[in-house]
C-alpha cells in the first residue's frame, strides 16, 4: 500500500480507488495539542486545494486542504470526542477522511516519503 505526502503536511494511503487521509506527525507536532477538529460529512465532494476542515490547537486554528479531488466515503468520527488522538497517533488511528478518488492521476503530483522528508528538512 503506497503512502503519499502533500505539501500541506498530509499523508494519503491508497487502496483501490479509496484514499485514507490524515496529517503527518510533523504537522501534528507543529500544531501543538489539538482540542477540536471540524470535519465535513460523508458524501461531500472535495476539490483539490479546497478547504476541507479545520484543526484547532490551544494556540490557533489551521485549515486542512484537499490534496486530491474526490468524495468523502467515511469520516473518522472518533476525533470529535477525542481530538487529542491527532497528537498521539496522527499517522495511525487518527486518520481524518476516507475519500473515493475522482482522478487517480492526481497522485502523481504528491510526494513520497523521501520527498516529504526533504521538504520538512
Amino acid at each position: 500500500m503506497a503512502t503519499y505526502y502533500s505539501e500541506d503536511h498530509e499523508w494519503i494511503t491508497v487502496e483501490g480507488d479509496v484514499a485514507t487521509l490524515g496529517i503527518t506527525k510533523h504537522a501534528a507536532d507543529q500544531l501543538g495539542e489539538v482540542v477540536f477538529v471540524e470535519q465535513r460529512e460523508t458524501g461531500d465532494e472535495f476539490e483539490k486545494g479546497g478547504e476541507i476542515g479545520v484543526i484547532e490547537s490551544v494556540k490557533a486554528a489551521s485549515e486542512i486542504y484537499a490534496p486530491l479531488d474526490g468524495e468523502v466515503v467515511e469520516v473518522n468520527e472518533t476525533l470529535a470526542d477525542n481530538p487529542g488522538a491527532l497528537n498521539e497517533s496522527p499517522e495511525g488511528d487518527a486518520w481524518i477522511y476516507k475519500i473515493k478518488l475522482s482522478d487517480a492521476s492526481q497522485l502523481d503530483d504528491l510526494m513520497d516519503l523521501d520527498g516529504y522528508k526533504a521538504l520538512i528538512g
Partner: protein
Amino acid sequence: MTDAPKRTPLYDLHVELGGKIVDFAGWEMPVQYPMGIMGEHKQCREKAALFDVSHMGQVILRGDNVGEKLESLCPQAFATLKEGKARYGFFTNDDGGIMDDLIVSNAGDHYFVVVNAALRHQDIPHMQANLDGVEVTEIFDRALVAVQGPKAEDVVGELCPAARELKFMETALADIGGVECRISRLGYTGEDGYEISIPEADAIRVSKLFLAHDDCEPAGLGARDSLRLEAGLCLYGNDIDQSTSPIEASLSWAIQKRRKEDGGFPGAARVQKELAEGAAKKLVGIKPEGRAPARQGVEIQSESGDTLGAITSGSFGPTVGGPVAMGYVAADHGAAGTKVNLIIRGKAQPAEIVALPFVTQNYKR
C-alpha cells in the same frame, strides 16, 4: 529599518530547556516548552510554574508625592497606597479609554511600576511628560520572573522565607540565592504566586534555583494566556484598548471609591457617567456549548440573530476542559445565563454568557 527581536536575560535558559521561541511584541519568547501548553497550564493550577515576563517594562518613579501625581493619569487611589503594597491600575486617555494597564507598587523611597511590553514606548514618555518633578527611569538590567501556582509559596519560600509572610498584593525586597530581589505576591494566572525582579546577571541562576524544586516547571506564553483567560483577566490589545472604558471592561472594581466620586483623572466625565447610567457595552465571560474554540473577532449574536458584539479573547481552557472566551456584548444582553450564538466560520454555535472568572481565583489574602 526594523528592530531585531530582543532577548531577555533568560533567553539562554529558554533554549536550554527546549523552549519553542516565537516573536512576541518584538521579543524572542518561549511560547511553550516540551511539556506543552496544556501540561504547563495544569502544572500551574496544580503545583507551580515559572514564567519569564522580563519583556514587560519595569520602571522606577522617584520624587515627592509620586502616588498623588500618578492619580492625575490613572483612576486609582495611588496617593493612599501604603508602603509595601501593590495595586492594579491603568492609564486612561481624555476620552476615558484605557491607554495601558499596569501594576504600581509603593517601594518606600520610590514607586515601582510594571507596564506591558508593547506599550513601554508610550507609557514612559507619557509619565515623563505628565509627572512634574518625578524622575522616571526604565530599568534594563533586571529580569522579571513569575512563579505561580498553589506550590509557589513553597518553591519561593524555601529559598526566601520572607516570601511566605507576604500577602496578596504585597511587595518587599528580599535575598534570594545571595542576591537582593524585589518580590511581589501577585500575578496573571488566577493562582497564588509571585513576580520577582532579579538582577540580570543572576536571573538564570536564581530561576534554576526555583526550577530545582520538584514542584516547579517552566511555562511559556501559551499557558500564560490560557491561565489568564480562565482567570478572567484582561489582556491589553485584546480585551481593553484606547477605545474601551474601564466600566465597559468590567474593571470598576479597580477604581477606588474616592476616585469614582471625585474624578480628577483623564476621561473622568465618561467614566463617572457610565458608572451612574451604565455603559452601552460590557465585557463578559462566554462559554461555548460545543467544543469549537471561539477566537478573537468572532461575532456574537442574540438568539434572534442581532449582532451583539465580538469575542476579544478566546481559546481552549485546559482546566475548564473546553473552550472559554471573553467578549463585549450590548449591556442589555450581558446578564449571566443569557443564551447567544457565536458565528464561527459562518455557522452559528450556541454559547452562554457566564460570570467571570471561569476558575476560582486562588489568592492568598
